[in-house]
């Protein structure tokens, strides 16, 4: 495929009794943010580590920047940046030292200004002289991203970069990831945060049990699997549900709220009018557009919280 930075065909990784990756196919276009989304144990990290040259596949084909990952990865090593899952920096190195050290491991010598520029890009200028052990969780991930960028890579793998961070730190990192895209980098982002994929990704593949269960842009996935809009009658309960049913309006009850699903956007206004005409005790009426969460619920059959599938 023209412009594909990553091409994967029939990729498998089997252990004794587990198919961690079970025959997946996908490609990643240059300049995209591609997100592998799925619960813990779905096979995301295994897939990414194969693409990073850190794990050998059992079968299938995987090419990164035109190179077979089984052989010849050395040729592209400095064109690929990696932020591993659960990244921790070296405790007693300062960010400016860590960046200089990592650059040297790619045979590059950075000037003080270049180091300062890298740290500025990730928002660590004021912490450049602090030992890394004193950095916050978000700052440590920022340092990891800075280190992954020292070789000026074309392709950056970010494996669950925001896991365990507070909401503010997560959103800060989102800005950084968008900045990578704006600089023309291709980003492979694994995450179990649905909102993260929805906010950042141009292309999303949802993995579960080693397989890609669906794939597309967030809008395509929502349109294909989630679809439409939901009118929420907050606090309407069973009484509201019965009243709507009596009027022939299909609905469902979730946590005391009555939900009315509208498949086409053009029908929302009419349905709102119908619902409003029914005498139902509600605390609030609002509409909710389907999200990747709904898509995930539909294709995987369970909700996901902090990477774990709900029963």
């Amino acid at each position, binding site marked *: 495929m023209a412009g594909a930075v990553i091409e994967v065909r029939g990729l498998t990784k089997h252990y004794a009794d587990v198919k961690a990756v079970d025959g997946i196919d996908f490609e990643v276009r240059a300049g995209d943010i591609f997100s592998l989304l799925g619960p813990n144990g779905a096979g995301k990290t295994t897939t990414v580590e194969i693409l990073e040259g*850190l794990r050998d596949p059992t079968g299938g084909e995987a090419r990164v920047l035109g190179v077979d990952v089984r052989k010849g990865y050395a040729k592209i090593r400095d064109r690929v940046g990696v932020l591993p899952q659960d990244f921790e920096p*070296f405790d007693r190195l300062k960010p400016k030292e860590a960046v200089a050290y990592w650059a040297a*491991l790619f045979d590059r010598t950075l000037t003080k200004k270049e180091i300062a520029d890298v740290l500025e890009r990730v928002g660590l200028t004021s912490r450049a002289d602090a030992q890394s052990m004193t950095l916050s969780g978000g700052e440590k991930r920022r340092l990891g991203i800075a280190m992954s960028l020292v070789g000026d890579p074309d392709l950056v793998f970010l494996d669950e970069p925001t896991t365990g961070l507070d909401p503010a730190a997560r959103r800060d990192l989102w800005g950084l990831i968008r900045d990578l895209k704006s600089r023309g980098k291709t980003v492979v982002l694994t995450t179990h945060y649905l909102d993260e994929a929805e906010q950042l990704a141009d292309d999303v593949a949802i993995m579960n049990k080693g397989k890609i269960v669906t794939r597309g842009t967030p809008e395509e996935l929502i349109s294909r699997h989630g679809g439409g809009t939901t009118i929420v009658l907050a606090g309407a309960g069973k009484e509201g549900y019965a009243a709507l049913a009596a009027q022939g309006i299909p609905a469902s009850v979730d946590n005391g709220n009555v939900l009315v699903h509208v498949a086409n956007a053009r029908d929302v206004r009419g349905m709102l009018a119908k619902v409003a005409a029914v005498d139902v005790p509600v605390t609030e009426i609002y509409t909710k557009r389907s999200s990747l969460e709904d898509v995930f619920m539909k294709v995987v059959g369970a909700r996901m919280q902090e990477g774990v599938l709900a029963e």
Partner: protein
Amino acid sequence: MKRILADVRAFGVQFMRSRIGAFFAIAFPIILILLFGAIFSGGGSQKVPIYVQDLSDSPESHNFTAALNATTVLEVRAIPTGPEILQYISENSINTALRIPADFQAKVLANETVNVTLYGDPTQSSYGIAYAAVSGAATQFNFTVARARPVVIPTTEKIAARDLRFIDLFLPGVIGLTVLTNPLFGMTNVCAEYRTRKFFKFLATTRLSKGEWLVSKIIWYSFLMLVSTAIMFAVERLVFGGIAVITPMAILLIVAGTFEFTSLGMILGLYVRDTETAAAVANAIGFPMMFLAGSFFPVDTMPPALQALARVLPLTYVNEGLRATMVFGNDAKALLYLGITIVIGVILFIIPAKALSWKSK
């Protein structure tokens, strides 16, 4: 080479910022030197007493006891010639005693071999000191009386005709101890930490190879051990006026020993699960070796079974080699031990170089 030097520098910076690491590499050996030096290198009351039963009571035997006194490590105290020596030792709670046989002078003058017998508990450090000093005195005596032909046993080792002090014998042992503990404990811990914290995986995303990483650790620890040795040597020389010398052979032994124990630490680090286990495993291997490999007293003074065990411990050859070259000027013996150390080191290095994998399984 650039990558290796960058890794050495980064590792060294982190090491020196870790106060515990710097303490054990630099401060702890100095404390040992000062402590043991103060105990054993002070005034006459701090000499090791040796009780001598001179059955010969002749001019030559008097010369020999004078040579013992001249070591400055021993304080010679006479035992009457009448009682049986073992009974006398038992009745008087004596740690170390020497019996000079009645035919001592006759055999020395006839240029025949004569045995002087040292009695004592080999597990006591004073016994080791006494043995080393008696050996030194005997050799010196051989030099002056019998023109180097070894007529007085127990030693046939060639030594420089100098006054040996405890600190001179102790310094090579402490250097050997430092060469063991820092790389062994350090690398076991580093490998465990790098694996559990996924640093290996992160390093695998760079151009640094596994072999380069291993070499950089050996370079760092060699540098550290040489600095540590220089400081220990300076303290020994300035504070206690010791006469042990740092020879080129000693430097080679220190580097080879560091290579050996860095590699051993890597092997242990491969198989431990976490840093807590790493500390326990390194202690289990390192501590017996400290005491059995002659860091604090010569291996020859240990019971035969322990001597046999000591001969399979790699630190023994580092300690004995350092003593041979630094104290006795015996580079031929040190060269042999250097060779043994290098061979063991290469074998130990090959194992982690093959087994260590940065890739996930």
